[in-house]
């Protein structure tokens, strides 16, 4: 195995981005395409090669730490610039560069009409670099660096249309919530440095069982989870992700669905040695995941903006992964992370074809009946909907059921969470089929479409086709009672994971098929059978709908309880303390000085003997003071 490959994979996207950024003027579009997509695809191919090489190794030899230089030695803490290449990081690299390549190819066409073509690819390349750094880092410090840099890339791309105030505001919100998460992780790192004297993964995991007290390990894991929750949009730090949909759709697909937002799951799996020592933190993680997946699913049912429906579904699906990770089913969490990357990227890209075809319209109210015009997008979206709903045989079916079955086996708490997860699976089917029906079937919207829907060309269609195949068949790499490729692959990192029992499998299978059927049927009955029915039903459940449309008023509470008071305090400090108190004090002192100067003018009588007298008495006074200080 050649760890240098990992450095090349990491460096190429950055090189492409830097070249684009340094280009003296807007380069020709073909050049931008080459510099944008080229490094991405090469990175993917090299990652695939690395994967093949790793397959040839014994499972004990699949972990390599590649160090290039000592970054810092401070006090007795030493930190290297180093990458950890192991099955977990290679799996993440495959997802990031693989799905990333497809989305980059798609973007060449999607962003064709945009003025800032070069900036788009430069920022996307920077994102991929940061994400790879995040998954490849061999210590907590560079994990945090990658963590923050993906946040920066996400900030830049959410605010890509920087002349639009909502985009700018959304970018800022995402950035600040992520800074809060970063800081929690930084504090966790403080604890590790102080208690263990190292930030190196392997050394920390080795020393943790003896070196960290019970309280310290719970604190570290909870703080790391705060970082994970901020990045992965878990309640209560989730409010930035729906707003992040202000970014271009390929950005939403890559960063806010397939890769960056799942970093929290990666983090928990990466540090599972610590979570295994921290039962309370693990329960907190699982419960947070369950709460999130349920709340987000309910909110998704009433969203009108297509991208926001998908955003809430992303939050909900990550909730499943986080729940699994909290319950110790790390393999299941990573499995769902991978299949989710396929079907969620597929959904965003196929819905992106619709948005592109309608020249930017995103509201469900401006859609309907599009299946007649955009057949390819219709089929692709339908496949994505089947996969995310967990219709048997699709990718989401296998991975989601594995999470639920693991929950069933995980004690009393697990049973409760199983119930929540199963219920939400039905809601998921409901809102996804709602999205499908309201977009593609039924009559055209009143007033018609803004523009005539345009089908997409091959650079957009081809990646969507690949993702559709993966969403349909990608789940077959791990089949209950059949084979367990994901768990086998990850074994060197997460250890031998127990497989859910037969009872759990069967109960989950039956339940999930039933709830998905009910959810899909309900959506069909409300939105597809009779076009007038949604209007007739609008009068029911007004208060509930209102609450869901307000997204349980998290934003409102934060504004009232945190942002508002802080701003008032700052305003008060600036207006009163700075201009009033501190400044007033000084002005007072100055006028006092002026006044005494007037008095002292009398002393300035021009007589040398007065001056000499004053000088001598001053020296004597000073000397007396010194003598007093010295002798006491």
């Amino acid at each position: 195995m050649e760890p240098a490959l990992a450095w090349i994979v990491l460096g190429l996207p950055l090189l492409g981005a830097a070249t684009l950024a340094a280009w003296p003027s807007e380069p020709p579009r073909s050049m931008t395409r080459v510099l944008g997509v080229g490094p991405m695809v090469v990175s993917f191919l090299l990652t695939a090669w690395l994967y093949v090489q790793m397959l040839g190794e014994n499972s004990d030899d699949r972990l390599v730490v590649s160090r290039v230089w000592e970054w810092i030695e401070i006090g007795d803490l030493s930190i290297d610039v180093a990458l950890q290449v192991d099955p977990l990081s290679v799996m993440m690299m495959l997802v990031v560069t693989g799905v990333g390549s497809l989305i980059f190819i798609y973007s060449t066409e999607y962003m064709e009409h945009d003025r800032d073509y070069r900036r788009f690819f430069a920022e996307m390349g920077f994102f991929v670099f940061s994400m790879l750094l995040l998954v490849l880092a061999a210590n907590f410090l560079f994990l945090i660096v990658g963590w923050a840099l993906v946040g920066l890339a996400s900030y830049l791309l959410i605010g890509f249309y920087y002349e639009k105030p909502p985009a700018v505001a959304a970018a800022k919100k995402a950035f600040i919530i992520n800074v809060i998460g970063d800081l929690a992780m930084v504090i966790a790192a403080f604890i590790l440095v102080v208690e263990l004297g190292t930030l190196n993964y392997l050394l920390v995991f080795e020393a943790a069982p003896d070196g960290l007290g019970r309280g310290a390990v719970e604190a570290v894991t909870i703080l790391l989870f705060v970082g994970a929750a901020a990045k992965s949009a878990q309640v209560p730090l989730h409010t930035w992700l729906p707003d992040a949909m202000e970014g271009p759709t390929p950005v939403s697909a890559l960063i806010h669905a397939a890769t960056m937002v799942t970093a929290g799951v990666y983090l928990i799996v990466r540090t599972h040695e610590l979570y295994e020592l921290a039962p309370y933190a693990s329960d907190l993680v699982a419960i947070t995941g369950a709460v999130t997946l349920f709340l987000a699913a309910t909110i998704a049912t009433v969203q009108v903006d297509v991208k926001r429906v998908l955003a809430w579904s992303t939050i909900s699906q990550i909730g499943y992964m986080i729940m699994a990770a909290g319950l110790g089913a790390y393999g299941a969490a990573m499995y769902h992370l991978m299949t989710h990357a396929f079907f969620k990227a597929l959904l965003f890209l196929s819905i992106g074809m619709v948005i592109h075809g309608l020249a930017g319209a995103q509201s469900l109210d401006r859609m309907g009946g599009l299946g007649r015009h955009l057949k390819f997008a219709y089929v692709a979206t339908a496949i994505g909907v089947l996969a995310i709903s967990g219709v048997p045989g699709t990718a989401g079916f296998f991975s989601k059921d594995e999470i639920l079955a693991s929950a069933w086996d995980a004690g009393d708490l697990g049973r409760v969470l199983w119930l929540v997860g199963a219920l939400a699976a039905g809601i998921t089917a409901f809102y996804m089929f709602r999205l499908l029906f309201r977009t593609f079937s039924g009559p055209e919207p009143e007033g018609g479409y803004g523009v005539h829907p345009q089908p997409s060309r091959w650079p957009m269609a081809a990646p969507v086709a690949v993702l559709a195949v993966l969403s349909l068949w990608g789940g077959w790499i791990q089949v209950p009672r059949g084979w367990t490729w994901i768990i086998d692959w990850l074994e060197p990192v997460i250890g031998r994971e127990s497989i859910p029992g037969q009872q759990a499998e069967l109960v989950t299978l039956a339940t999930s098929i039933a709830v998905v059927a009910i959810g899909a049927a309900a959506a069909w009955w409300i939105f597809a059978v009779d076009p007038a029915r949604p209007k007739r039903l609008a009068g029911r459940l007004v208060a509930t709908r209102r609450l869901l449309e307000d997204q349980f008023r998290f934003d409102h509470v934060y504004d009232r309880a945190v942002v508002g008071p802080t701003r008032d305090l700052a305003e008060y400090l600036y207006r009163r303390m700075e201009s009033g108190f501190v400044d007033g004090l000084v002005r007072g002192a100055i006028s006092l000085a002026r006044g005494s100067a007037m008095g002292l003018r009398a002393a300035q009588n021009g007589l040398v003997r007065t001056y000499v007298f004053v000088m001598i008495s001053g020296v004597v006074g000073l000397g007396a003071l010194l003598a007093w200080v010295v002798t006491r």
Partner: protein
Amino acid sequence: MPMVTAIILLPLAAALALAIPDTSRMQARIIALLAAGLSFAMVVSLTVRLDRDAAGLQFVDQHSWVSDAALQWAVGVDGISIWLLLLTSGIVLLGLIATAWRPPEREVGFLAAMLAGEAGLLGLFAAADLVVFYIFWEAMLVPFFFLIGMWGSEGRVFATTKFIIYTMVGSLPMLVAILATAFIAQDTTGQLTFTISELRGVSFTETQSTWLFAGFALAFAIKVPVWPFHGWLPDAYRAAPLVVTAVLAAVMSKAGVYGLIRIGVPTFPDGAENFAIILSVLALVGIIYGSLVAWRAPTMRMLVGYSSLAHLGFIVLGIMAFDIQAGQGAVLQMVNHGLVVAAAFLIIGLINRGTAGDHIDRIGGIAAGAPRLAVVFLFVSMAALAIPGSNAFVGEFFILTGVFRHHVWIAVLATIGVVLAAVYMLRLYQTAMNGPAFGANSRAIELRPVDYVVLSPLVGAMLVIALWPASIVGSTRAPVAQAVAPAQIAAERPADQIERPVVPNPPPEALPLPGDEPPIDEVPAPAVGEEASP
């Protein structure tokens, strides 16, 4: 060749040369740039030749002047001060280049004052003697007084008055403290000296130590400034020409923190220990207060100025933690803050080229017309808010790690300042750069070749530190460990955290108790042995 002396005197000589009447503007520019450039080059050569593992001063240049009064010229550098010399000479050189392109009125005088100010700062950072330190501390004020008073904008008279009064309030007690230190030390060691390294290890009583530390600390706290001694800062930063503001914020603010780690903490460990919590809490208040006020500040300069108050709070926290990691982080952060804040003020200067005023809310959307500037500004903003991966993050991370080791809650509360930094820096960046374009002629703002000359060294230095912080941190370990060791002992820290032994002055076997009759050199050395032998 006495390099350190030459580094200090070269700008001073150039400043005097410019004072010759009838110097033409072109001559003045050449002289100024040559002197500053040569001085910078010499600092670079010292940096390369420095022994990075040594704790004491190197390249020491010591000449006795009035030996009876122990007056001398003594300068030198170590792994801490070398970076401040590099920062000072580099920033002033860049400032002079920027000035040459946009010359102010009475340019010759301006250049002379800048050079004199540089000499003052260099001398301060290189001083190995308390009197030399004090002279440069005071002398530095004169050129800055004129720079603000003569080339400043509206409110400059008030600003200079305030600046001078504040500084004098601090420096007079410091003068008293310097004299008292020397005299008290003479009583214990029998030798009058102002040499800083010789005063270390002198055992002052706790009361003496406390009062002497207080005398120094007040001057340092005003200079930094530490909240609530920052009253002079907004006015001075507002009134001074932008290049001068950049030098004030980037370099002069380091005089105070440098004094703390060079003189205050190592010489008066008991006093420093008594004030540790007070100063740390004040620094913490400054971090949060400065960040909040920066968020609401109406102009770009004020915003960056108040952010300085917050950032310097981190440095003070790091020094007062008496922790090697935190101390090394603090020294690194002195350099980082200098680079970042200088770049920020220079960028504000560029923005002012195309705007009517400095008000944040009256401009917007500059990025569309000035994309290159937007990239550089974003880079600097990210460094200012210390995003992980930036140079400033390295400094803040290790400062807070060290603080966390001893005062968990101070470190945790200080992180609030980091969140607020993101809030105010994004306010600055986004309102100026993003949104619909108005209020600014962005074509006039876009980077020009000369702007690259001035900004790229700063950006390049930030990148180098981010990728390889060991370059700076590696040389600070021994001097920082030596500087904090006495205070660590005073604070009763575990032995494994203390790296350097404290050498008492005078050595214990030669120590006559205060009030002992025989002067030190008459104590018969064998007497100790005689007592021990029977």
